[in-house]
Protein backbone atom coordinates (compact mmCIF):
# COMPACT_ATOMS: atom_id res chain seq x y z
CA UNK A 1 0.00 0.00 0.00
CA UNK A 2 2.79 2.34 0.98
CA UNK A 3 4.73 1.69 -2.23
CA UNK A 4 1.65 2.29 -4.39
CA UNK A 5 1.09 5.61 -2.64
CA UNK A 6 4.73 6.47 -3.14
CA UNK A 7 4.42 5.59 -6.83
CA UNK A 8 1.36 7.79 -7.18
CA UNK A 9 3.23 10.73 -5.68
CA UNK A 10 6.12 10.23 -8.01
CA UNK A 11 3.74 9.87 -10.95
CA UNK A 12 2.10 13.15 -10.05
CA UNK A 13 5.50 14.79 -9.77
CA UNK A 14 6.41 13.40 -13.17
CA UNK A 15 3.34 14.96 -14.68
CA UNK A 16 4.06 18.40 -13.26
CA UNK A 17 7.50 19.62 -14.17
CA UNK A 18 9.48 16.54 -13.20
CA UNK A 19 13.15 17.08 -13.99
CA UNK A 20 14.00 15.27 -17.20
CA UNK A 21 17.44 13.75 -16.87
CA UNK A 22 16.77 10.15 -17.90
CA UNK A 23 17.87 7.84 -20.65
CA UNK A 24 15.16 8.97 -23.04
CA UNK A 25 16.32 12.57 -22.95
CA UNK A 26 19.95 11.55 -23.20
CA UNK A 27 19.18 9.58 -26.32
CA UNK A 28 19.16 12.99 -27.96
CA UNK A 29 15.98 12.83 -30.01
CA UNK A 30 14.59 16.25 -30.73
CA UNK A 31 11.57 15.54 -32.90
CA UNK A 32 9.01 15.76 -30.11
CA UNK A 33 8.89 12.01 -29.61
CA UNK A 34 10.87 12.42 -26.40
CA UNK A 35 7.99 14.12 -24.68
CA UNK A 36 5.56 11.44 -25.77
CA UNK A 37 7.89 8.66 -24.66
CA UNK A 38 8.64 10.41 -21.39
CA UNK A 39 4.93 10.85 -20.74
CA UNK A 40 4.26 7.17 -21.44
CA UNK A 41 7.35 6.15 -19.44
CA UNK A 42 6.26 8.23 -16.47
CA UNK A 43 2.57 7.38 -16.51
CA UNK A 44 2.42 3.75 -17.52
CA UNK A 45 1.25 1.51 -14.68
CA UNK A 46 4.21 -0.82 -15.11
CA UNK A 47 7.61 -0.52 -13.50
CA UNK A 48 10.31 0.00 -16.11
CA UNK A 49 14.06 -0.09 -15.68
CA UNK A 50 16.51 0.47 -18.49
CA UNK A 51 19.71 -1.43 -17.89
CA UNK A 52 23.10 -1.47 -19.51
CA UNK A 53 23.71 -5.19 -20.11
CA UNK A 54 27.48 -4.83 -20.05
CA UNK A 55 27.80 -3.16 -16.68
CA UNK A 56 24.40 -4.23 -15.32
CA UNK A 57 23.85 -0.70 -14.14
CA UNK A 58 20.47 0.97 -14.11
CA UNK A 59 20.30 3.78 -16.60
CA UNK A 60 16.74 4.92 -16.08
CA UNK A 61 13.75 4.07 -13.90
CA UNK A 62 10.16 5.20 -14.18
CA UNK A 63 8.03 6.32 -11.20
CA UNK A 64 6.28 2.96 -10.79
CA UNK A 65 9.67 1.23 -10.59
CA UNK A 66 10.77 3.82 -8.04
CA UNK A 67 7.59 3.23 -6.04
CA UNK A 68 7.86 -0.55 -6.08
CA UNK A 69 11.54 -0.60 -5.24
CA UNK A 70 11.07 2.19 -2.70
CA UNK A 71 14.08 4.15 -3.91
CA UNK A 72 14.33 7.33 -5.90
CA UNK A 73 15.57 7.49 -9.44
CA UNK A 74 18.69 9.26 -8.18
CA UNK A 75 19.43 6.30 -5.93
CA UNK A 76 18.69 3.78 -8.64
CA UNK A 77 20.47 5.25 -11.64
CA UNK A 78 24.06 4.11 -11.74
CA UNK A 79 23.44 1.26 -9.32
CA UNK A 80 23.99 -2.35 -10.25
CA UNK A 81 20.68 -4.15 -10.84
CA UNK A 82 21.71 -7.15 -8.66
CA UNK A 83 21.62 -4.80 -5.68
CA UNK A 84 17.96 -3.93 -6.09
CA UNK A 85 15.79 -5.77 -8.51
CA UNK A 86 17.38 -9.09 -9.27
CA UNK A 87 18.29 -11.73 -6.72
CA UNK A 88 20.79 -13.33 -9.15
CA UNK A 89 24.43 -13.10 -8.18
CA UNK A 90 26.99 -11.24 -10.23
CA UNK A 91 27.97 -13.34 -13.23
CA UNK A 92 24.68 -15.24 -13.11
CA UNK A 93 22.42 -12.73 -14.80
CA UNK A 94 19.47 -14.72 -16.16
CA UNK A 95 19.47 -12.66 -19.37
CA UNK A 96 23.10 -11.90 -20.23
CA UNK A 97 24.83 -14.88 -18.59
CA UNK A 98 22.22 -17.64 -18.52
CA UNK A 99 20.54 -16.51 -21.76
CA UNK A 100 17.06 -17.12 -20.40
CA UNK A 101 13.94 -15.76 -22.00
CA UNK A 102 12.31 -13.64 -19.31
CA UNK A 103 8.77 -13.04 -20.41
CA UNK A 104 5.94 -12.71 -17.90
CA UNK A 105 7.83 -14.72 -15.34
CA UNK A 106 7.09 -14.56 -11.64
CA UNK A 107 9.99 -13.07 -9.78
CA UNK A 108 10.47 -10.99 -6.67
CA UNK A 109 12.16 -7.69 -6.01
CA UNK A 110 13.53 -6.64 -2.68
CA UNK A 111 12.36 -3.17 -1.82
CA UNK A 112 14.15 -0.58 0.29
CA UNK A 113 12.55 -2.00 3.44
CA UNK A 114 13.93 -5.43 2.63
CA UNK A 115 10.47 -6.77 1.78
CA UNK A 116 10.09 -9.29 -1.02
CA UNK A 117 7.56 -8.00 -3.57
CA UNK A 118 6.23 -10.58 -6.03
CA UNK A 119 6.28 -9.28 -9.58
CA UNK A 120 5.55 -10.45 -13.10
CA UNK A 121 8.62 -9.57 -15.08
CA UNK A 122 9.60 -9.28 -18.73
CA UNK A 123 13.02 -8.37 -20.05
CA UNK A 124 13.32 -7.24 -23.63
CA UNK A 125 16.46 -6.34 -25.50
CA UNK A 126 16.52 -3.03 -27.39
CA UNK A 127 19.16 -1.42 -29.52
CA UNK A 128 19.71 2.28 -29.73
CA UNK A 129 22.50 4.01 -31.62
CA UNK A 130 24.27 0.68 -32.02
CA UNK A 131 24.24 -0.09 -28.32
CA UNK A 132 22.15 -2.80 -26.70
CA UNK A 133 19.99 -2.14 -23.67
CA UNK A 134 17.74 -4.26 -21.51
CA UNK A 135 14.22 -2.99 -20.93
CA UNK A 136 13.04 -4.60 -17.77
CA UNK A 137 9.32 -4.19 -17.11
CA UNK A 138 7.40 -5.55 -14.16
CA UNK A 139 4.03 -5.37 -12.48
CA UNK A 140 3.27 -5.84 -8.81
CA UNK A 141 1.30 -9.09 -8.33
CA UNK A 142 1.12 -8.99 -4.55
CA UNK A 143 -2.71 -8.90 -4.60
CA UNK A 144 -2.82 -11.90 -6.92
CA UNK A 145 -0.37 -13.78 -4.70
CA UNK A 146 -2.47 -12.94 -1.66
CA UNK A 147 -5.58 -14.24 -3.45
CA UNK A 148 -3.72 -17.44 -4.33
CA UNK A 149 -2.60 -17.84 -0.71
CA UNK A 150 -6.17 -17.33 0.42
CA UNK A 151 -7.35 -19.98 -2.02
CA UNK A 152 -4.77 -22.42 -0.67
CA UNK A 153 -5.84 -21.57 2.88
CA UNK A 154 -9.49 -22.22 2.05
CA UNK A 155 -8.65 -25.53 0.35
CA UNK A 156 -6.59 -26.46 3.42
CA UNK A 157 -9.49 -25.73 5.77
CA UNK A 158 -11.92 -27.56 3.50
CA UNK A 159 -9.59 -30.52 3.40
CA UNK A 160 -9.15 -30.48 7.17
CA UNK A 161 -12.95 -30.36 7.58
CA UNK A 162 -13.26 -33.37 5.33
CA UNK A 163 -10.66 -35.36 7.26
CA UNK A 164 -11.86 -34.37 10.70
CA UNK A 165 -15.61 -34.39 10.10
CA UNK A 166 -16.83 -36.38 7.11
CA UNK A 167 -14.63 -39.45 7.53
CA UNK A 168 -15.20 -39.67 11.31
CA UNK A 169 -18.95 -39.24 10.74
CA UNK A 170 -18.87 -42.15 8.31
CA UNK A 171 -17.04 -44.20 10.94
CA UNK A 172 -19.54 -43.19 13.60
CA UNK A 173 -22.39 -44.20 11.31
CA UNK A 174 -20.79 -47.63 10.94
CA UNK A 175 -20.18 -47.74 14.69
CA UNK A 176 -23.82 -46.95 15.46
CA UNK A 177 -24.94 -49.56 12.96
CA UNK A 178 -22.74 -52.15 14.67
CA UNK A 179 -24.12 -50.97 18.01
CA UNK A 180 -27.66 -51.61 16.83
CA UNK A 181 -26.59 -55.19 16.11
CA UNK A 182 -24.97 -55.45 19.54
CA UNK A 183 -28.19 -54.37 21.28
CA UNK A 184 -30.18 -57.18 19.71
CA UNK A 185 -27.44 -59.81 20.07
CA UNK A 186 -27.81 -59.92 23.87
CA UNK A 187 -24.03 -60.41 24.23
CA UNK A 188 -23.38 -56.92 25.51
CA UNK A 189 -24.65 -55.44 28.77
CA UNK A 190 -26.24 -52.02 29.12
CA UNK A 191 -22.96 -50.45 30.29
CA UNK A 192 -21.22 -51.66 27.11
CA UNK A 193 -23.93 -50.02 25.02
CA UNK A 194 -24.01 -46.85 27.14
CA UNK A 195 -20.24 -46.39 26.91
CA UNK A 196 -20.27 -46.67 23.14
CA UNK A 197 -23.24 -44.33 22.80
CA UNK A 198 -21.46 -41.85 25.06
CA UNK A 199 -18.27 -42.10 22.95
CA UNK A 200 -20.29 -41.38 19.81
CA UNK A 201 -22.11 -38.50 21.52
CA UNK A 202 -18.79 -37.01 22.69
CA UNK A 203 -17.28 -37.50 19.24
CA UNK A 204 -20.22 -35.77 17.52
CA UNK A 205 -19.79 -32.86 19.94
CA UNK A 206 -16.09 -32.80 19.16
CA UNK A 207 -16.72 -32.84 15.39
CA UNK A 208 -19.21 -29.97 15.75
CA UNK A 209 -16.73 -27.86 17.68
CA UNK A 210 -13.95 -28.74 15.20
CA UNK A 211 -16.17 -27.54 12.33
CA UNK A 212 -16.92 -24.34 14.22
CA UNK A 213 -13.22 -23.77 14.86
CA UNK A 214 -12.31 -24.49 11.24
CA UNK A 215 -14.96 -22.17 9.86
CA UNK A 216 -13.77 -19.48 12.27
CA UNK A 217 -10.20 -19.97 11.04
CA UNK A 218 -11.35 -19.87 7.40
CA UNK A 219 -13.12 -16.54 7.97
CA UNK A 220 -10.07 -15.06 9.64
CA UNK A 221 -7.24 -14.16 7.33
CA UNK A 222 -4.84 -16.69 8.78
CA UNK A 223 -1.71 -17.81 7.04
CA UNK A 224 -0.40 -20.69 9.12
CA UNK A 225 -0.95 -23.21 6.34
CA UNK A 226 1.69 -25.87 6.58
CA UNK A 227 4.32 -25.33 3.88
CA UNK A 228 3.95 -28.94 2.73
CA UNK A 229 0.22 -28.47 2.17
CA UNK A 230 0.78 -25.22 0.31
CA UNK A 231 3.26 -27.03 -1.92
CA UNK A 232 0.83 -29.92 -2.42
CA UNK A 233 -2.02 -27.64 -3.51
CA UNK A 234 0.28 -25.62 -5.75
CA UNK A 235 1.43 -28.82 -7.46
CA UNK A 236 -2.15 -29.83 -8.32
Amino acid at each position, binding site marked *: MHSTHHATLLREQGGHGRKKTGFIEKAGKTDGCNDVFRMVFDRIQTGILIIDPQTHTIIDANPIAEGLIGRTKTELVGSVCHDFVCPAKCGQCPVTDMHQDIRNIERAIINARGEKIPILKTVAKAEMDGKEYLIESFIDIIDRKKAEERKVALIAYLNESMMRAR*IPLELMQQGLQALAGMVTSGEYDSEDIRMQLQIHANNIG*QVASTLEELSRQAVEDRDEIPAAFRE*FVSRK
Partner: protein
Amino acid sequence: MPENTSLTIDADNLLYLMLAQPDHIRLMNISVMKKILQSGCTPLIITVNQPQKVLSKIYAKEGIGPDQYYVIDAVTRYSGGACTPGPRVKYVNNPANLTDLGIAITELIKEIPDQKKCIMFDSVSMLLIHIPTATASKFLHFVVNKLKLSEISGIFLCVDKGLDPVVLSQMSAFVDRIVDFDLPGH
Protein backbone atom coordinates in the same frame (compact mmCIF):
# COMPACT_ATOMS: atom_id res chain seq x y z
CA MET B 1 0.80 -46.01 -3.30
CA PRO B 2 -1.01 -48.78 -1.42
CA GLU B 3 -0.13 -52.34 -2.26
CA ASN B 4 -3.08 -54.56 -2.88
CA THR B 5 -1.58 -57.42 -0.97
CA SER B 6 -2.59 -59.22 2.15
CA LEU B 7 -0.79 -58.43 5.35
CA THR B 8 2.15 -60.60 6.33
CA ILE B 9 3.74 -59.90 9.66
CA ASP B 10 7.22 -61.30 9.80
CA ALA B 11 10.17 -60.94 12.05
CA ASP B 12 11.46 -57.89 10.24
CA ASN B 13 9.67 -55.44 12.53
CA LEU B 14 7.93 -53.75 9.66
CA LEU B 15 5.55 -50.84 10.00
CA TYR B 16 2.33 -50.86 8.01
CA LEU B 17 -0.41 -48.39 7.26
CA MET B 18 -3.53 -50.42 6.53
CA LEU B 19 -6.37 -48.79 4.65
CA ALA B 20 -9.99 -49.96 4.52
CA GLN B 21 -13.40 -48.61 3.64
CA PRO B 22 -15.30 -47.22 6.68
CA ASP B 23 -17.63 -50.23 6.76
CA HIS B 24 -14.67 -52.63 6.86
CA ILE B 25 -12.61 -51.00 9.56
CA ARG B 26 -13.98 -53.21 12.37
CA LEU B 27 -13.40 -56.35 10.33
CA MET B 28 -9.91 -55.10 9.57
CA ASN B 29 -9.21 -54.81 13.32
CA ILE B 30 -10.17 -58.46 13.94
CA SER B 31 -8.41 -59.72 10.83
CA VAL B 32 -5.18 -57.89 11.67
CA MET B 33 -5.37 -59.07 15.29
CA LYS B 34 -5.58 -62.69 14.12
CA LYS B 35 -2.64 -62.22 11.74
CA ILE B 36 -0.52 -60.75 14.53
CA LEU B 37 -1.28 -63.73 16.77
CA GLN B 38 -0.66 -66.19 13.93
CA SER B 39 2.75 -64.65 13.39
CA GLY B 40 3.66 -65.36 17.00
CA CYS B 41 3.77 -61.70 18.02
CA THR B 42 2.12 -60.32 21.15
CA PRO B 43 -0.32 -57.59 20.12
CA LEU B 44 -0.61 -54.26 21.90
CA ILE B 45 -3.86 -52.61 20.84
CA ILE B 46 -4.10 -48.84 21.11
CA THR B 47 -7.79 -48.09 20.88
CA VAL B 48 -9.27 -44.64 20.38
CA ASN B 49 -12.38 -46.29 18.99
CA GLN B 50 -13.94 -48.93 21.24
CA PRO B 51 -13.64 -49.40 25.01
CA GLN B 52 -11.48 -52.28 26.19
CA LYS B 53 -14.49 -53.97 27.82
CA VAL B 54 -16.35 -54.11 24.50
CA LEU B 55 -13.22 -54.95 22.52
CA SER B 56 -12.50 -57.93 24.79
CA LYS B 57 -16.01 -59.31 24.10
CA ILE B 58 -15.58 -58.83 20.35
CA TYR B 59 -12.22 -60.63 20.48
CA ALA B 60 -13.59 -63.37 22.74
CA LYS B 61 -16.27 -64.04 20.13
CA GLU B 62 -13.44 -64.60 17.66
CA GLY B 63 -11.67 -66.98 20.01
CA ILE B 64 -9.07 -64.48 21.20
CA GLY B 65 -8.62 -64.56 24.96
CA PRO B 66 -7.75 -61.54 27.15
CA ASP B 67 -4.40 -63.13 28.05
CA GLN B 68 -3.28 -62.98 24.43
CA TYR B 69 -3.01 -59.20 24.07
CA TYR B 70 -2.37 -55.88 25.82
CA VAL B 71 -4.52 -52.76 25.48
CA ILE B 72 -4.08 -49.02 25.82
CA ASP B 73 -7.62 -47.73 26.12
CA ALA B 74 -8.16 -44.02 25.42
CA VAL B 75 -11.97 -44.08 25.38
CA THR B 76 -13.34 -45.80 28.51
CA ARG B 77 -12.68 -42.77 30.74
CA TYR B 78 -13.80 -40.50 27.89
CA SER B 79 -17.15 -42.34 27.97
CA GLY B 80 -17.45 -42.12 31.75
CA GLY B 81 -17.05 -45.88 32.07
CA ALA B 82 -15.35 -47.74 34.89
CA CYS B 83 -11.68 -48.49 34.32
CA THR B 84 -11.02 -52.00 35.59
CA PRO B 85 -7.32 -52.12 36.42
CA GLY B 86 -5.24 -55.00 35.14
CA PRO B 87 -1.68 -55.85 34.21
CA ARG B 88 -2.58 -55.95 30.54
CA VAL B 89 -4.41 -52.66 30.25
CA LYS B 90 -3.58 -48.98 30.63
CA TYR B 91 -6.16 -46.22 30.48
CA VAL B 92 -5.72 -42.74 29.08
CA ASN B 93 -8.23 -39.98 29.94
CA ASN B 94 -8.94 -38.80 26.45
CA PRO B 95 -7.76 -39.62 22.91
CA ALA B 96 -6.57 -36.00 22.62
CA ASN B 97 -4.17 -36.49 25.54
CA LEU B 98 -1.19 -37.41 23.41
CA THR B 99 1.33 -36.96 26.22
CA ASP B 100 -0.36 -39.62 28.35
CA LEU B 101 -0.89 -41.79 25.29
CA GLY B 102 2.83 -41.57 24.48
CA ILE B 103 3.78 -42.39 28.08
CA ALA B 104 1.37 -45.36 28.17
CA ILE B 105 2.84 -46.72 24.92
CA THR B 106 6.41 -46.37 26.25
CA GLU B 107 5.56 -48.01 29.57
CA LEU B 108 3.52 -50.88 28.20
CA ILE B 109 6.10 -51.70 25.53
CA LYS B 110 8.64 -52.11 28.35
CA GLU B 111 6.25 -54.17 30.48
CA ILE B 112 5.42 -56.74 27.80
CA PRO B 113 7.84 -59.60 28.53
CA ASP B 114 7.50 -61.29 25.15
CA GLN B 115 10.25 -60.93 22.58
CA LYS B 116 8.07 -60.33 19.55
CA LYS B 117 5.62 -57.48 19.94
CA CYS B 118 3.36 -55.73 17.50
CA ILE B 119 1.37 -52.56 18.03
CA MET B 120 -2.00 -52.06 16.36
CA PHE B 121 -3.32 -48.50 16.34
CA ASP B 122 -7.12 -48.34 15.92
CA SER B 123 -7.50 -45.95 14.29
CA VAL B 124 -5.68 -42.95 12.83
CA SER B 125 -8.98 -41.72 11.34
CA MET B 126 -10.72 -41.67 14.73
CA LEU B 127 -7.74 -39.86 16.28
CA LEU B 128 -8.39 -37.02 13.82
CA ILE B 129 -11.70 -36.28 15.56
CA HIS B 130 -9.70 -35.09 18.53
CA ILE B 131 -6.59 -33.45 17.11
CA PRO B 132 -5.59 -31.55 13.95
CA THR B 133 -3.95 -33.54 11.17
CA ALA B 134 -0.62 -31.76 11.64
CA THR B 135 -0.55 -32.75 15.34
CA ALA B 136 -1.61 -36.30 14.47
CA SER B 137 1.23 -36.53 11.98
CA LYS B 138 3.78 -35.41 14.58
CA PHE B 139 2.41 -37.88 17.13
CA LEU B 140 2.43 -40.77 14.66
CA HIS B 141 5.99 -39.88 13.73
CA PHE B 142 6.88 -40.09 17.42
CA VAL B 143 5.21 -43.51 17.74
CA VAL B 144 6.88 -44.79 14.58
CA ASN B 145 10.31 -43.68 15.82
CA LYS B 146 9.69 -45.35 19.16
CA LEU B 147 8.72 -48.60 17.43
CA LYS B 148 11.74 -48.50 15.12
CA LEU B 149 14.12 -47.87 18.01
CA SER B 150 12.51 -50.68 20.01
CA GLU B 151 12.48 -52.98 16.95
CA ILE B 152 8.75 -53.55 17.24
CA SER B 153 6.30 -54.07 14.40
CA GLY B 154 3.43 -51.65 14.06
CA ILE B 155 0.18 -51.52 12.16
CA PHE B 156 -1.80 -48.30 11.84
CA LEU B 157 -5.41 -48.76 10.81
CA CYS B 158 -6.94 -45.98 8.77
CA VAL B 159 -9.93 -45.32 6.58
CA ASP B 160 -9.08 -45.22 2.90
CA LYS B 161 -8.99 -41.57 1.76
CA GLY B 162 -9.23 -40.68 5.47
CA LEU B 163 -5.88 -38.97 5.62
CA ASP B 164 -4.80 -35.55 4.58
CA PRO B 165 -2.68 -35.94 1.41
CA VAL B 166 0.26 -34.39 3.19
CA VAL B 167 -0.11 -36.65 6.24
CA LEU B 168 -0.51 -39.64 3.93
CA SER B 169 2.68 -38.71 2.10
CA GLN B 170 4.47 -38.22 5.44
CA MET B 171 3.12 -41.54 6.72
CA SER B 172 4.30 -43.19 3.49
CA ALA B 173 7.77 -42.04 4.40
CA PHE B 174 7.47 -43.27 8.02
CA VAL B 175 6.01 -46.71 7.37
CA ASP B 176 7.47 -49.56 5.36
CA ARG B 177 4.30 -50.53 3.53
CA ILE B 178 0.84 -49.18 2.81
CA VAL B 179 -1.61 -52.03 2.39
CA ASP B 180 -5.20 -52.02 1.15
CA PHE B 181 -7.28 -54.28 3.35
CA ASP B 182 -8.98 -57.07 1.44
CA LEU B 183 -12.04 -58.64 2.99
CA PRO B 184 -11.27 -62.28 3.83
CA GLY B 185 -12.60 -64.44 1.01
CA HIS B 186 -12.52 -61.61 -1.55
